[in-house]
């Protein structure tokens, strides 16, 4: 089984998803890593677990670009003819996987949490259902972050590095302009020992002080799921999850958060997770150490008064 994984990197750093997929690829067979970039060949040294690194260099690949990366990846897949292509179900991967599926007329299974030569399991419906797809090679799977351990993909070794010339990437219809770093916030939630994290269950902005008070009593800060940030009730710097920050506090108290995969990605490694959610089937309970279905509007005042 020949597995090709697409390395993901940002700002010169390989993302965890690369190692997560590499570990899985090694389990399935031989692992080839497609590394696209510009003056980025050094990164191949970190891919010790790979059998081969296919390195493609071009100024047009210096930064992720759906257009140029799409064309480059197509050329690599055409040349290497892998049985399975693994791409992160990430912001970058979302622009690559479906495009490759159409370009190569290859089946694609998304949100993969398990991959075998004849089946892929996807986590759908906000993590509430798994769907197993019967597939046959060649196929593409886009892999959810955190589905496989990154450690399995890290390690010493000296993979063969094969340089492949980039196809013609001129005339791209998408052009990279700049990276925008997040603005520094009032509170760095990645450094807080205790996070009281609020989700859509908090209902409206006027209820936030309740969470602030509890966080104050506990000696921590308030963080939130994405909808709270999109509603502009809290700054982006308080967002936990895929497009927010990854946190690892001593205590993560989740109030009215369902536990969508994009949220879980940011907090599953917290030492102690306590989830408060009125829906007993909420996926957050799969990751929490302790849970309760008591209404947060009853629990939070009770808890605050006891501290």
């Amino acid at each position, binding site marked *: 089984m020949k597995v090709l994984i697409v390395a993901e990197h940002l700002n010169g750093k390989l993302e965890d998803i690369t190692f997560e997929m590499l570990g899985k690829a090694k389990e399935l067979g031989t692992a080839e890593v497609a590394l696209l970039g510009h003056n980025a060949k050094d990164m191949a040294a970190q891919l010790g677990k790979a059998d081969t690194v296919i390195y493609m260099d071009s100024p047009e690949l210096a930064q992720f670009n759906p257009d140029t990366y799409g064309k480059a990846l197509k050329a690599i897949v055409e040349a290497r003819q892998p049985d399975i292509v693994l791409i992160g179900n990430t912001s970058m991967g979302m622009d690559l996987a479906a495009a490759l599926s159409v370009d190569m007329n290859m089946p694609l*299974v998304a949100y993969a949490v398990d991959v075998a030569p004849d089946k892929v399991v996807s986590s*759908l419906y906000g993590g509430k*259902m798994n769907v197993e*797809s*019967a597939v046959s090679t060649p196929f593409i799977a*886009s892999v959810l972050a955190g589905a496989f351990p990154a450690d399995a993909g890290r390690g010493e070794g000296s993979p063969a590095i094969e340089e492949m010339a980039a196809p013609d990437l001129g005339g791209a219809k998408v*052009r990279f302009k*700049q990276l925008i770093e997040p603005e520094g916030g009032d509170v760095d939630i990645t450094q807080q020992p205790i996070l009281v994290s609020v989700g859509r269950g908090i209902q409206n902005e006027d209820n936030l002080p309740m969470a602030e008070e509890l966080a104050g009593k506990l000696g921590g800060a308030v963080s939130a799921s994405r909808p709270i940030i999109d509603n502009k009730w809290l700054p982006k710097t308080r967002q936990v999850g895929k497009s927010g920050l990854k946190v690892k506090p001593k205590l993560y108290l989740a109030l009215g958060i369902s536990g969508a995969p994009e949220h879980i990605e940011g907090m599953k490694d917290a030492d102690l997770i306590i989830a408060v959610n009125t829906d007993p089937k909420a996926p957050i309970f799969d990751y929490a150490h302790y849970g309760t279905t*008591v209404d947060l509007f009853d629990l939070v005042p009770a808890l605050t008064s006891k501290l």
Partner: protein
Amino acid sequence: MNIIVLIKQVPDLVEELEIDSSGKDLDREWLKYKVNEFDDHALEEALLLKEDQGGSVIAMALDGQDVDKALYAAAAKGADRVVKVTGVGENPSNHQAAKAFANAISGMDYDLIFTGVQSVEDRDGQLPVLVAHYLGLPHVSVVSGVQVEGGKAVVHKEYGGGMMAELEVDLPAVLGIQAARETPRYVPVARVRRAMRGTELEEVSAGDVDASAGSEVARMFKPETGAGAEMLEGSAEEVADKIVGILKEKGIV
């Protein structure tokens, strides 16, 4: 500037999800549907662009569960035209849905196509990129923030950790919208009813949908929850006491 916004009805996850007798799909008989939340953002961003720069917004959906209602709601919010794509059948794969949209859109006059970034049931990949590829257009997904100037869009694509890339895209293009710059507007039911009377719901045939997911669903199952949480039972007071006990035991308070 003309913007087409694709809208999808998805199961409301607040409801209990059950598996049907085939073991391969949700039991959809009692399922409640709602508009995909990212589509509300896509529509909002389109309406804001129209308000800034003129042009028109066309809301489009595949025929299916409650789509008429969703399209009339889009009209009530300010969409100029609402279009239903017919003849695809129930629960198409995303490859099929994308082909149907591409067929329906190909003869139309547009500058941008907006979709939601993803939905909760896109097993065979996200639709914006599929549509873009079937139409031969550039695409950017996971977009929050769109500016249009001189035949180009400048967009923000979100990465992890609050990092974003600014990309410039030639029009026409397809954008998968994650978040609009404003909270999506709300319309009261009375306005939707009025839109229902005053709006013509256009129908377009999906044509020949020669696309397939390339894989079959073998089974659907509830995720094995591993150890899962130890559930704390009792009244709010009792549960609060138990939590304080746990925090003390772990030396947190």
